[in-house]
């Protein structure tokens, strides 16, 4: 391997590993793409780099500029890494209930944390960031939920890597947060072969949001609507904390140390494998398990851990 001149050059080109030993259907292969191999530890390094370089190309970032972004963790961490290397300041609006490791990572790369009410979840962080950004026009608000540079990171990176490494892929399964991964990878894969199916997995977050006063307070990421998310997805399935933790543990049984959202994606991939006759399912693992050690996900009583996980944002 060649020597990289800069840590940002290490973003992308993540490995894919076969976990078919866990497949419930002998005619379905299950392959995991391990985004935890990125230098900032998650798939969001790709998004962070894409957002910042797109803003640079559009002349939005002068040297020493300040950026503000809502994030329950990984995008903030990716942006903190990119901003530290490129010399920008970063403020991250973070719900109060994210795991401690996420705060520590943000702080070590010099990001400033602005806390939003934990009870309002990611919705509250988005709301607060939009308000603060409007009050400070001198700060740059890249807004991953509405910025096409988010799905483009996957259209130009993650998607082509999957098709290069797994040309016989039939299904792609990933978590739905900003929808950037599903939109970018999904569009690229369907352009290569229209019959490839794209399955979204989401956590049942609706119930833990106190800040929601009526249904019109709901939120759909603007990129999802603008880029035809509803047409692109073939299936959307809900995976609760208990299933997520169970599959995170089963992945550890085959040596894969991944975060809880990987367990959720794996649970979705297993559902998919049960419903199809044969196929090659690629699922995306957003990050490794390091940031979740404090949740006791691998060691505690599964029901207690699931109950705790309801209160911590892990997607």
């Amino acid at each position, binding site marked *: 391997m060649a020597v990289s001149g800069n840590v940002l050059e290490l973003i992308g080109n993540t490995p894919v590993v076969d976990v078919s030993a866990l497949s419930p259907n002998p005619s379905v292969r299950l392959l995991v793409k391990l985004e935890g191999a990125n230098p900032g530890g998650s798939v969001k390094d790709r998004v962070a780099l894409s957002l910042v370089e797109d803003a640079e190309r559009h002349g939005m970032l002068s040297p020493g500029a300040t950026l503000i972004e*809502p994030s329950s963790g990984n995008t903030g961490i990716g942006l903190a890494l990119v901003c530290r290397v490129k010399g920008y300041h970063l403020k991250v609006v973070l719900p109060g209930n994210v795991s401690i490791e996420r705060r520590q990572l943000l702080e070590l790369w010099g990001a400033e944390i602005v806390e939003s009410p934990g009870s309002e*979840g990611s919705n509250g*962080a988005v709301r607060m960031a939009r308000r603060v950004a409007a009050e400070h026009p001198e700060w740059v608000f890249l807004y991953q939920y509405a910025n096409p540079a988010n799905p483009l990171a996957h259209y130009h990176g993650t998607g082509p890597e999957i098709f290069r490494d797994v040309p016989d892929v039939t299904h792609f399964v990933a978590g739905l*947060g900003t929808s950037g991964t599903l939109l970018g990878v999904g569009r690229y894969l369907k352009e290569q072969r229209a019959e490839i199916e794209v399955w979204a997995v989401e956590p049942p977050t609706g119930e833990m949001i106190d800040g929601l006063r009526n249904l019109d307070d709901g939120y759909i990421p603007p990129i999802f609507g603008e880029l035809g998310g509803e047409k692109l997805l*073939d299936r*959307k399935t809900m995976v609760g904390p208990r299933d997520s933790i169970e599959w995170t543990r089963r992945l550890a049984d085959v040596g894969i140390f991944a975060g809880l959202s990987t367990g959720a994606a794996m649970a979705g991939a297993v559902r998919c494998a049960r419903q199809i006759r044969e196929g090659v399912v690629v699922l995306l693992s957003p990050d490794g398990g390091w940031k979740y050690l404090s949740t006791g996900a691998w060691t505690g009583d599964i029901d207690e851990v699931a109950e705790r996980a309801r209160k911590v944002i*892990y997607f």
Partner: protein
Amino acid sequence: MPVEVRLPTLLRPAAGGAPSATVDGSTVGEVLHSLEAVHPGLAGQVLTDDGSLHRFVNVYLNDDDVRYLDRLDTAVASGDVLSILPAVAGGAQ
């Protein structure tokens, strides 16, 4: 066919505070209309005036979002569970 419908906190006041209701129907649309008959005003918050699903409402048949099945025409069977949940910013890392 009796189907259990789980309601989000937001919609419980329209159902007298109940967390769920069991009503009849053979499709998701029929179940929602039966629900309206039992708890007037409830389905009106889930469906728009033209009878389609409210933009910020997701309805799940067991664990699958019905928008990606046959929407309101999705068939339901006895013992199925429908969950109504508001659309919010998901994990959004």
